């Protein structure tokens, strides 16, 4: 009795953890196993109408529908329906393989025929990616049965802004790479995104296949140190004193007047006081006056070495602040990480 109780508990727990849609698919597969093909088809079609069904669940439902339409029992075979279902399935699951419990040789041949005759795309190799630094490259791997044009569009689930648009063309298999940094700034902000890959079949019927899945971005805000753009000229010191200009008039008068006075008026004691003025001295006095006056008006100011040095130091400090901020920002960019987690089962 205890063993039975434990078994029932385990089954209940397993059921509680399983997805209801998976349960429905299992019912459809059970019906197929019981040779109840119409029932299996009917149940599987209900999965396609469920809004919450993931692309992986839809693919499995389509497999059940294809198997139900083309069983080994000849009388129950509906070739056209099975082929159409398989083509629909392979369009977005080019590498899809029928589970052993559903397939048989004839159905496998039909899958191969559908694979040959339809333009199918498989998006694989996408896992959680960490993008680092300026490189910031992430990629989505695509594969199809013929060369085509693949366009990738990533949009935020909330809002309509297009975050990424990139494309690859002319190959049947390859990576669509895209940068998570642009202009040295992260494109993504933390949140949920939808990745949509549209494949265009070149020429022929020009089929277009669209597959989409979810993307979760963990992108912390990248803050930059402010890089000073312009030096504050108001903080610069005057490197020269003001022009002397008219202020030279007084010193010119004084030195010229003193020269004149000394050479013409100032004489010795006693009888020497009768001496005459020295014309050369008066000429020199006039020259000193004129030269001083000219020098004053021609003056451009005295260089202030302390201020010149101060301004030079300020300029060097300004350059250093730019260099430091740029280096710091480069370091932040290099160390920055955006973690992208792809959810291939999501829509």
């Amino acid at each position, binding site marked *: 009795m205890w063993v039975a109780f434990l078994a029932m508990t385990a089954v209940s727990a397993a059921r509680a953890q399983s997805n209801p849609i998976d349960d429905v698919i299992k019912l459809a597969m059970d019906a197929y196993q019981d040779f109840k093909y119409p029932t299996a088809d009917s149940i599987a079609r209900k999965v396609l109408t469920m809004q919450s069904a993931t692309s992986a669940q839809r693919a499995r439902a389509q497999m059940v529908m294809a198997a139900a339409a083309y069983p080994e029992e000849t009388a129950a075979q509906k070739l056209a329906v099975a082929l159409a279902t398989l083509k629909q399935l392979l369009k977005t699951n080019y590498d899809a393989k029928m589970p052993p419990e559903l397939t048989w040789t004839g159905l496998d041949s039909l899958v191969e025929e559908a694979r040959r005759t339809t333009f199918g795309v498989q998006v694989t190799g996408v896992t959680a990616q960490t993008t680092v630094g300026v490189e910031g490259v992430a990629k989505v791997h695509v594969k199809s049965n013929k060369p085509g044009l693949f366009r990738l569009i990533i949009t935020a689930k909330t809002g309509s802004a297009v975050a990424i648009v990139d494309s690859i063309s002319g190959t049947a298999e390859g990576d669509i790479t895209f940068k998570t940094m642009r202009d040295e700034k992260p494109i993504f902000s933390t949140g949920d995104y939808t990745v949509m890959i549209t494949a265009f079949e070149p020429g022929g019927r020009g089929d277009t296949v669209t597959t989409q899945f979810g993307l979760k971005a963990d992108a912390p805000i990248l803050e930059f140190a402010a890089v000073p753009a312009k030096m504050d000229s*108001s*903080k*610069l*010191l*005057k490197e*020269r*004193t*003001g*022009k*002397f200009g008219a*202020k*030279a008039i*007084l*010193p*010119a008068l*004084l*030195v*010229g*007047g*003193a*020269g004149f*006075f*000394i*050479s013409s008026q*100032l*004489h*010795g*004691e*006693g*009888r*020497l*006081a*009768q*001496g005459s003025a*020295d014309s*050369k*001295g008066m000429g*020199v*006095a006039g*020259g*000193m006056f004129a*030269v*001083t006056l000219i*020098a*004053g008006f*021609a*003056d*451009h*100011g*005295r*260089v*202030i070495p*302390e*201020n010149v*040095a*101060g301004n030079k130091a*300020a300029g060097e400090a300004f350059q250093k602040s730019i260099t430091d901020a740029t280096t710091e920002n480069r370091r932040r960019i290099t160390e920055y990480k955006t973690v992208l987690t792809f959810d291939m089962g999501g829509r």
Partner: protein
Amino acid sequence: MRARVLCGAFVALAANLAAQAPVTAPAAAPATAPSAPAGPNRAEFRVGGFMLSGERSYDYIGPKPAPATGSTRGIDVLLRASGIGVSVRSMSGTYGDGKLKIVSADARLLLFPPVFTIFGGYGKRALCGVSCRTNTIIMGGVSSTVSIGGSGLRTFISGAMLIAPELKSVAGTTTGASAAGSGIEAEAAILYRFPGAPLFVSLGYRTETFNIKATTSAPQAPEEVRGLRFGGGIQFGGR
């Protein structure tokens, strides 16, 4: 006459101070930056030679003779900081027929900034003909040096009073004896410092009057030496 000279010198220096004041104002600067120093107050060292080309007038016994032309050559050394300095000068001149030489040397202590300096000094002055009459000189005066902005030109005016006290001879000899005297020294000049080189030249006019008072054995001997003053040399520091 002396009163006129000294009065004029003080008036000139006061006016020079007024002229210098705007020049020394520091440049407007933010609190975070070093400000300009105030005016021409940097330490200065100057060594130069000069030549005085002019004439000597003197009065002696008999009719007044004509001034004798000649020249004086000398060396001037200046070392000063913003508020204090020393100056040493030595010069020797020959006038007339070459038999008369005037030799002097002095040292001065300078106080206050160049724009207004009071100085005092001590020196010797000798007038040599057949024999030498030597006087010990004590001097005091004022001078002013004004920088004309950043042109490299400076104006210099100076006036001083010279006093020679009477000295007794050494007992039993004539050695060391000198008569009392007094005089005036005045000078006006411009100095130009070449940009980028520690060299300067100067041009000016200088006069020196000296009067040895009469003694029991010699009459009063007033004389005057004046003329154009040319100079040049090397200079470090200063404005």
